[in-house]
């Protein structure tokens, strides 16, 4: 099967999803910084908490959102949540993954087979990834914190 690499519009869909989450749920927008290409083939979970979606079918790869605990704790506070447990911090990461999943489905269509979004704490771990094309990291700053969206996805070649 032929695959094509992501284009900037594909990546922007996910970046906008993250921005919209911060703007609507916390009333404090995140700042999107310049995307860059990662030089290793795996999808790396590189921060305290991670929300991940993996896709298959006519598509292949993974999309992840990695954030430090301080950022997610402040998101909870901004939402009015007083219970700042590990479970709730993970829930924020999972909810962001859920939103990435919804945006992916809307942008790429029902042909995208998306596994249930997961949230995890495995800093430094690597997600097995079938995508052959490059992975892109898009840093987002929110207050003093920096989080990363990593998009590593191959798309079916459109003829």
């Amino acid at each position: 099967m032929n695959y094509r690499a992501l284009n900037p519009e594909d990546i922007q869909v996910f970046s906008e999803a993250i921005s919209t989450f911060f703007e609507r749920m916390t009333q404090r927008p995140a700042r999107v910084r310049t995307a860059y290409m990662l030089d290793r083939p795996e999808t790396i979970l590189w921060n305290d908490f991670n929300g991940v979606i993996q896709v298959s079918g006519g598509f292949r790869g993974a999309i992840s959102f990695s954030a430090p605990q301080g950022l997610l704790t402040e998101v909870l506070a901004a939402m009015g949540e007083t219970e700042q447990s590990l479970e709730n911090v993970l829930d924020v990461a999972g909810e962001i993954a859920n939103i990435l999943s919804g945006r992916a489905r809307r942008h790429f269509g029902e042909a995208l087979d998306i596994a249930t979004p997961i949230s995890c704490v495995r800093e430094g771990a690597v997600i097995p990834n079938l995508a052959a094309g490059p992975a892109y990291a898009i840093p987002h700053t929110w207050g003093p914190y920096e989080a990363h969206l990593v998009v590593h996805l191959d798309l079916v070649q459109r003829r």
Partner: protein
Amino acid sequence: MEPGKLMSKLLIVDDSSIIRNHIARLMANSRLPRIDIVGLAGDGRKAVEMAKTARPDYITMDLTMPHMDGEACIGEIAQLLPDARILVVSALSDKATALRAISRGAHGFVHKPFSDETMIQSLLELMS
């Protein structure tokens, strides 16, 4: 609320506890009519059980949930409580998903992530 009128009942269904709590807080702090939150369910199966006993007038319903997803849950609750009005609150924002949910018995759709104002307005419309 009019004297003698029973308070309306709301069931909140979402597998995310922070979203369940967030909607509950909005209900408490907004211009919405006073409403009794009769349950917070984290999956579709639990929501059906709660609906049987609490008999809510209004329901906010996530779609992607463990055990029983939102679409199946809407179908069961629509049969159980035909007068209950269901607002889908989901990150799945494509048209086909919305149409399927409405064909099962949902009355409205809010896309995640939602602003406070959007959620309050959608609940007001659901209750009008």
